[in-house]
Each structure stands twice: as C-alpha cells, then as structure tokens.
C-alpha cells in the first residue's frame, strides 16, 4: 500500500459470531467502531478498509448463515476519511484509494454467503456504499442522516454508489440522492430511504438490531421474501437529460463533480459493474487531483470546524449571563431578531419603538410567526406557549432596566444610534451589553460618547436572520473581552457561526460583495450591457447572478453601503451613476427572472464596453486587492475567516473554497498582490 494517512482514526471492523433464534448456524456480525462516541463518527481510511477486509475474511471463514455489518451507537459510518485526502499527492495514489474501497466492498457483493447491512445510524458516502454492496439492508428509524453527499465536496460516490444505487432504486431516486440532495445540503431520512428502496426494511430504533437479526434469519431461512420493484430503464436517459438541464441552468457547468456524477449515472444504465466501478475510480482520481475538490474540502472543514471554534475569541469563562434581551425598534428586522432571541435563548425579550402602533405590530409579527411555526409542527405547543409569554413590547425604554443585552435595529444613522445609546445608558446597568445590528457604521464611533463604551459590540446578522448562519461580531476599539466573550456565547446560543471582525467599514461580507458590485457597475458605467455583466460570472457557479443579488440585497441598501465605502475608500469604491439611477427609479430589477427592460434602458451610455471575460477578470482582481487590504488591515485574523464569511454569509460555493482558494488557483492573487492567500495544499492541490 502506498497511500497513507498518518492521522487516521481507525474504524475497526470487529467480527462476532452470534446465535440467532431460528437458525441452526451462527451469523457473523461485523461491528464498525472507531472507539469514540458519536461525536467522532466512524469513517474509512486505508487502515479502516484493511480492517474491514480482514473482518470479511474472518467472517467468511466461519461459514456463518449470513454476514451482517452494523455500526456503533447512532453511527453506521459516515464515509471515506476525507481528512486523508490532503495526503494524496499523485493520481496513482488517488486511483489506489478508489480501488482499495472497491476491492474490499465488492467482496460483500460477490459473497456466496448472504450479506446484510443493518444501518443503525448515520450512513453517508462510503458508509452507505458499503451497505449498498450487501445483498440486503435494514434501516433504523434512528438513522437520521443517509446519503451520498460526495458531489457537495467536489467528489463523486467512488466506491460503487454511482453504479449500485441507480440499479437498485432507479435513475430518478439516484439523481435525487447523488445530485439534488448534496447540492441543496439535504440528506435522506430513514422513512424516505425505505420508500425509495435504499433499504428493504425499516425497524424502530429501540430494538433495531434484534429486529434486523431476526428478519435476516427469516430471509436466509426462506420465511421472508424481499421484493423490490423492477428498475425502469426506459426513463433513464430522460431523467438524466432533465437533471443535466437543471444543473446547467443553476451551475453553468462550474461544478466538475456534478458533471462527473451525471456521466457515471448515465454509464450505470448499461455498463457492467466492473466497467462502471472502473470509471468511478478514474472519475474519483480526476476529481481528487483537481483544485475544485481540494477547495471544497477546505470549505467543508471551515464550516465544520473553524465555524465552531472561532479564532481570536477571549475565554468563554468571561462571558456574562444573559437573562433578558431588549430590542430597540419593532420593525421587520427587529421583530425577526426578537423571534430568534426568544426561540434560542428562551429568556424574556422586549421590543420598544416610538409609538404603540409600531410596538403592537412588531409584537404581533413575532406572535404570528410563533403560531405559524407551531401549526407547522416546528414548535411543540408547550414551547410555543412559553415563547408567547416571553415576548412583549413597550413604548417606554425603562423596560430595559433589567436587560443584560440590548440590541438596536433602527435606521442606519450614526447620530440617531448615538442618541439612543446615550438615552439607554441612563436606564441599563453599566454591564449590560449594547449591541448594534449596523451593517456598515463604525461601532467605535457609536460608543465614543458613552460612559461605558467597553460594553458596545457589533452584531451583524444576514437577511433572513432565521436562515443565514453567519454572524459577524465586531469589536470596537474600546470593546472589552467580557463583552466580546458574551457576544460569542450569545451567538453560539443563537446557533450562528460567529466570526470576530475588527471595526472596519462594512466589515467582511458587505465589503467584499460591495467591491464586487462596484466593479460590475464600473463596467456598466463604461458601457458594458447589463446582460453581459450579468452572465460574466457564470463560469464560477455563484449562487446568483449580480443583478439577482442586487435585487435580493435591495438596490437602496446596496447603494447605502456603497456610499459608506466610497466615503472610506473613494479610489476603490466608485459611486456609480448608473446604480444611483437604478436606485432612484425604484424599479424591480428582474421581471420573470429576466432583467427588467426598463432597467436596461437606464444602463446606457459609456463608450468602452467590456467582454464577459474582461468584466470577470477585473472584478476578481478587485476582490483579490480588497481581500489582501482587509487582511493587512487586520479586519479578520486570516484568509480562512473571509472564506468562511463568504460561504456562510453570501453562499459562495464550496468548489471556489469561498473565494481565496479560487483567487489563488487562478493566479489572480499573485498577479494582483504578488502572493497567494493560502499556501499550496491549503484549499488547493499540494505542490
């Protein structure tokens, strides 16, 4: 073996011979267990595969009535140990990884002794693939995550999944599991897996293994017959054609893993298993040796690890308890915040506004949302009743007197916010945290005239606040550690991924996106047609085109943030006359998903139109310049934080690694700033 994974947490495959009522011979039960609890799930690295190989040999030698594989409590196996991929430096090694899995797993498929997978817990990627090789499968109602998510991390199901699944459940189901679910961050629930035919039986978690063993005994004893609907091959090509159309429309061919997965699914219709899996191995090796998969794995790691352990945050022991939250303002944003704080912190939340009508409207909105969640079954009636009792409103700010955390969500005006803080300081305790949901104003300036400026912190959410997971926490110049620690503790309770950001204009996501938009409108001002700039970024596979993004953010908000940044950095952030015209016109930017012709008419003039390639090149170069400046200014600790913000706050794709791995691999960082953001091997292939 030439592939190595020096840090592999080895998932051992342990064989135990068990007597099962109804069988005259013992069954061989293989348990996958890495020796840790469910927080460190089972996975397959080279040593784990070797252990499974040996277990299959041992089990077979015992001539059991059947061989079954199951996992440790709550976890079956979550697939290949992707932390080993950075150690793969050559295509030969990548091929070997694919072949190794195939060689071991196929023994379960070719076994003359009946083989079963008892999917007791999460089964993802290679974990589900090992189960697919078995002759039969049962799934537990407690197995909460099932799927083949490889495409989302730049790979394909490379251990038989792309060939076995479509031939088990048909092309439509396979396309859902292999393409649609990963690209929309979904997994299968056990019931769905049973309905799709991924599993032959579903048993309750309370005695899943007992039920599975007895069922398997029935199957091998001939008492139970397993019936599977025949796979419809006539619709195969049509389904894949349709899937490809949908993918191209959304991703514009920018995600190589999705394309490869489609090709493998097409191949699975007629190819022999040997040919199909050989193609899988090649595809997997191509992808492993491509920058897109490395960037995806890098981004995956940011979201999974770095987001949970933010960098540069003071000791959480310094955090103060938050037992009541105040919200200044009762508008839509404030009401959304009230709902979020009440749901997650489950402490009293009080909103204030200038008049009773506004307050009533805000509280009414929150109560309405609670009812809606309860009626959809997203909240149980007890929790809904509790939340209704927690939310209240007032026109008198004295209700904040015993609040430990007050957040303002009023109009973006520095003087107004300063005035509110000054008023509030007379009411709240000196330790109460004052948080601002500003998207671009200076937290330091906002706190400047306060007696206790050390308790002011920026708390920048992304719209819609209930959905987007990012929270930028902004430390003003005088903000103290206890305040920052409390802000992060609250962020964690809100189930947000928080990133520590220096008090700099527009913080992270808005600054990057505004620089991007600014370049786009520079091109428009120069005479580039709107549809040209709008399609210029298709090859990147961004979640939406620039005009759709502008529509989502709102042209007025974008213009406001643009003005702030223009004021701060006039040479880099242009004040686009065309954007101003669009804002003033107040027209919808898109009509039936097409750019509004009325808006197109506003974007005329200019004498130096650019091509799509030029627009894209200039915008990306501007991004490289801006991000380098942000890092030099210390806006965040590292490039990784920028990427994390772009993935979680702006939905930038994994295959770009957020943004800096793409800027590095396309050579733009070096061209513009003279150096890479990340060393080779981080978010990219090793040197």
């Amino acid at each position, binding site marked *: 073996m030439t592939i190595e994974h020096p840090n592999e947490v080895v998932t051992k495959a*342990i*064989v*135990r011979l*068990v*007597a*099962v*009522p109804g069988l005259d011979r013992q069954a061989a*039960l*293989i*348990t996958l*267990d890495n*020796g840790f609890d469910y927080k460190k799930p089972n996975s397959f690295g080279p040593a784990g595969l070797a252990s499974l190989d040996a277990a299959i040999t041992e089990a077979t030698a015992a001539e059991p009535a059947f061989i079954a594989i*199951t996992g*440790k*409590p709550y976890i079956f196996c979550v697939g290949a140990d992707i932390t080993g991929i950075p150690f793969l430096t050559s295509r030969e090694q990548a091929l070997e990884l694919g072949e190794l899995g195939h060689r071991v797993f196929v023994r379960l498929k070719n076994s003359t002794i009946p083989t079963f997978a008892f999917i007791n817990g999460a089964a993802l990627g290679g974990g589900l693939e090992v189960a697919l090789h078995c002759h039969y499968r049962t799934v537990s109602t407690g197995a909460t995550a099932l799927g083949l998510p490889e495409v989302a991390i730049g790979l394909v199901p490379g251990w038989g999944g792309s060939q076995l699944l479509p031939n088990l459940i048909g092309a439509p189901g396979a396309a859902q599991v292999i393409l649609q679910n990963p690209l929309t961050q979904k997994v299968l629930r056990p019931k769905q897996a049973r309905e799709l035919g991924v599993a032959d039986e579903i048993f*309750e978690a*309370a*005695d899943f*293994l*007992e039920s599975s*063993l*007895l069922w398997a005994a029935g199957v091998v004893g001939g008492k139970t017959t397993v019936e599977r609907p025949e796979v419809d091959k006539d619709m195969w090509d049509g389904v894949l054609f349709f899937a490809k159309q949908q993918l191209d429309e959304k991703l514009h061919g920018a995600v190589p893993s999705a394309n490869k997965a489609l090709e493998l699914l097409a191949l699975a219709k007629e190819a022999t298993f040997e040919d199909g899996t050989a193609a899988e191995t090649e595809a997997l090796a191509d992808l492993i040796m491509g920058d897109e998969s490395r960037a995806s794995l890098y981004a995956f790691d940011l979201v999974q690890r770095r987001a949970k352990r933010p960098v540069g945050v003071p000791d959480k022991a310094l955090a103060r308890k938050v037992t009541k939250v105040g919200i200044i303002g009762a508008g839509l944003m404030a009401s959304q915040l009230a709902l979020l704080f009440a749901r997650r912190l489950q402490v009293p939340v009080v909103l204030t506004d200038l008049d009773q009508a506004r307050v009533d409207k805000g509280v009414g909105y929150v109560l309405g949302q609670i009812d809606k969640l309860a009626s959809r079954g997203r909240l149980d009636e007890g929790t809904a009743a509790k939340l209704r009792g927690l939310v209240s409103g007032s026109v008198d700010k004295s209700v904040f007197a015993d609040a430990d955390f007050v957040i303002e969500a009023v109009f973006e005006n520095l003087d107004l916010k300063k005035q509110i803080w000054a008023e509030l300081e007379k009411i709240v305790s000196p330790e109460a945290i004052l948080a601002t949901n500003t998207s671009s104003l200076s937290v330091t300036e906002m706190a400047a005239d306060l007696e206790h400026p050390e308790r002011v912190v920026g708390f920048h959410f992304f719209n819609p606040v209930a959905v987007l997971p990012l929270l930028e926490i902004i430390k003003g110049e005088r903000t103290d550690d206890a305040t920052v620690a409390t802000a992060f503790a609250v962020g964690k309770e809100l189930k947000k991924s928080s990133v520590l950001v220096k008090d700099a204009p527009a913080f992270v996501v808005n600054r990057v996106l505004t620089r991007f938009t600014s370049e786009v409108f520079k091109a428009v001002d120069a005479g580039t047609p709107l549809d040209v700039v709008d399609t210029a970024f298709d090859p990147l596979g961004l979640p939406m085109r620039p005009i759709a993004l502008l529509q989502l953010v709102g042209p007025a908000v974008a213009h406001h943030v643009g003005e702030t940044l223009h004021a701060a950095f006039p040479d880099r952030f242009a004040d686009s006359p065309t954007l101003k015209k669009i804002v003033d016109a107040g027209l919808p930017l898109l009509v039936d998903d097409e750019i509004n012709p009325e808006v197109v008419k506003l974007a005329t003039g200019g004498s130096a139109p650019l091509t799509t390639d030029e627009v894209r090149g200039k915008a990306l170069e501007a991004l490289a310049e801006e991000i380098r400046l942000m890092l030099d200014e210390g806006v965040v600790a590292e490039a990784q934080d920028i990427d994390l913000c772009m993935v979680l706050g702006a939905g930038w794709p994994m295959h770009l690694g957020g943004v800096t791995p793409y800027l590095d691999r396309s050579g733009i960082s070096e061209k513009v700033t003279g150096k890479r953001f990340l060393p080779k091997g981080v978010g990219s292939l090793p040197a």
Partner: protein
Amino acid sequence: MPREVREVVFVDGVRTPFGKAGGMYAETRADDLVIRCIRELMRRNPQLPPERVDEVAIAATTQIGDQGLTIGRTAALLAGLPKTVPGYAIDRMCAGAMTAVTNVAGGIAMGAYDIAIAGGVEHMGRHPMGEGVDPNPRILAEKLVDPSALVMGATAENLHDRLPDITKERVDRYGLNSQLKTAKAYADGKLQGDLVPVALRDAEQGWGLATVDEAPRETSLEKLATLKTPFRPHGRVTAGNAAGLNDGATAALLADEATARELGLPVAMRMVSFGYVGVEPEIMGYGPIPSTEKALKKAGLTIDDIGLFELNEAFAVQVLAFLDHYGIAEDDPRVNPWGGAIAIGHPLASSGVRLMTQLARHFAEHPEVRYGLTAMCIGIGMGGTVIWENPNWKGADK
C-alpha cells in the same frame, strides 16, 4: 356501590435471557432490558391496542440510576407505549415482580384497570445488593433483628441451623438437579419461547445477541462438595446450592378476563388467590410456608389441590424447607419441572414473573392439572405465594 370482583388472568409473560453479574450485560442498561420485554409483549400480542394498557408496574430492588426515575413510567415511554399510559416503580426485593403482578391484579379485580403490564428488573452487576442502603441504627441498638438478617446467605445458614435434617449433601443434590432439569428443558426447547433476544455491545467484541441464560453450568456432586461456603466457615450454603448474582428483566400482561376475551388475548392462567406474610428476618427463607398457608386458606384449597409448583430457588435450603413442610419429595416432578433459579439465575426483583411465565407454559402442557402455585422467599423476612388456575383444565378426572 355494589360491584362484582372481576377475574384476573395472566395473558403472556416474557423475560430476557438472564446474565451473570459482570457478564454479558456488563455494558447493557437495566432499563433497556425491561424495555425489550415490554416491546416483546406488545409485539407478541398485536391484537392489544397499546393505548388500552392502563398501568405499567415495574419492580426493582435498587432504584438508583438506570433502575431509578420511576422505572415503570420511563420504561413505558421508552418502549414506545402511548404517553397516556401511566407507570410506577415498585419494590419488595425478590418478590418485586410478584408484587407488581398482585398489585395490578387488585386493580383489575376491582375494576380500576382492564389491562396492565407488570414486571421487574435487576441488574446486579450495575447495582450490587446493598448498594446505597442505610440501615437504621436502631436495628442494631435495639436488637430488633439479628444483623445476619440483612445478609441473605447468612439467613440461609440460619435456616439450616433450625432444620438440621436439611444437610449439605441434600442441598448440593438439589442444586445439581436444578442444573440437570434446566439443561434438559433447554435441550427440549422448553425455555426458549419465554426469551426475548437482547442486543449487547461491548467495545472489544462489538455487537452481539443474548439468546440464552448465562448462568447454567455443568457440574457434579463431587465438584459441588468442594465449593467455598462464603457466609460461614464450614457452613452449608455455596454458589452451587444457591442462586447467583444475575442481570435480567421480566414482564407480563395481566388482564380482566372479559377484556382479554373481547380483545382475543390468550388466557394462560387465572389468578385464584395470593398471600404475603412476614417471618423472622433471620430465617427469611421460611417465608413461603406461611404465605402459602395464607393463599391456600383464602382460596379454600389444600396443598393436595396443587398440581404444579414454581418455587423460587434463592437457596436450596429454603426450597427443601418448603417441600419437607408439606411432605413433598425433593424430586417430585410437579416441582420446578424445568429447574429453577439455582441454574437459571435470580435477578432479584424480576424473578416473580419468570415463575409465573413458566407455570403458564406448564399449564398449557398439563390440562389435567387444575391449580398451580408460584412462591418465593423475600428479604427482611417475608414470603409470597400466588395460586393460579389452569384455564386448560377440562374437568375433574385426572
């Protein structure tokens, strides 16, 4: 208000295979054992709508940790019974499950319940005898009972002192016979039907499945004679003539007879009477004799009416005391036909239902027998007896 007493029937009973403390269930929770039994009862009786269960009474002697938290209620919830089904925990040491049965039987008879689940669990590996006990100092200071009364093995030695006819040789022979009868019952497939397979896991060996009792062993009189007498130097009580320390759980379905027939539930036994009696705690093993007297008297029966006996074998001496008292031969085929706790094991609070489940199986095989009894001795000096009628009995001619 006037009302009729309703007939209480034993519908079905199951148990986990019994393990040796520290053995196959070392990493299995006690509540999971009883949950398995409840689920198996419901699985075997699909005609019973789960919401019709009116009570879940589960016994455990040491109600700590995974045997605590009102285990009847929590086990019912975890077994997937509807939240509307109530439950409670109960303790009368070795007769815990027996008391659970007689308690719910009282409720059924007076019309408070139609259907109930009664059972018990004891994981003596996780909860050794005496865990967390805090005897009142008055017991010693006022010499209320002899300190040996709290050590069950010592009470068995005390019983030997009082009944010198029960010799070491007799108890060893009884112990051996218990093993032989159980081995034969297993070979004949008699015990397997009561058992609920239990998934087991340990870090070294992975998952497994418990399908048979762990305690039964091959032995001989010669080997038994060499065993230590841990409760008294040169004593008589050994691991060979007493039940071991075991892990296991049982559960049974009890019903009002009319309800059982309405739902199409099987009627395996009909309860005739029961009796509990206190005796001197120092010789608690004597308890089943007066408790049987009491139950017989209430039933208007004599010992001669009883055609089958399931006696708990906490100690051979205590069984022999019972048999000698009633003039029954120690190898009488009516007594513990498939062996007893000396071979199978005695997870304290669970054992009562095992006796009943086995008696129900005997009833099915013996329509010529009309009455049977289950009896057991109980710590701190008590005995308990339940007399049952065989619904398969077809008239007077034997």
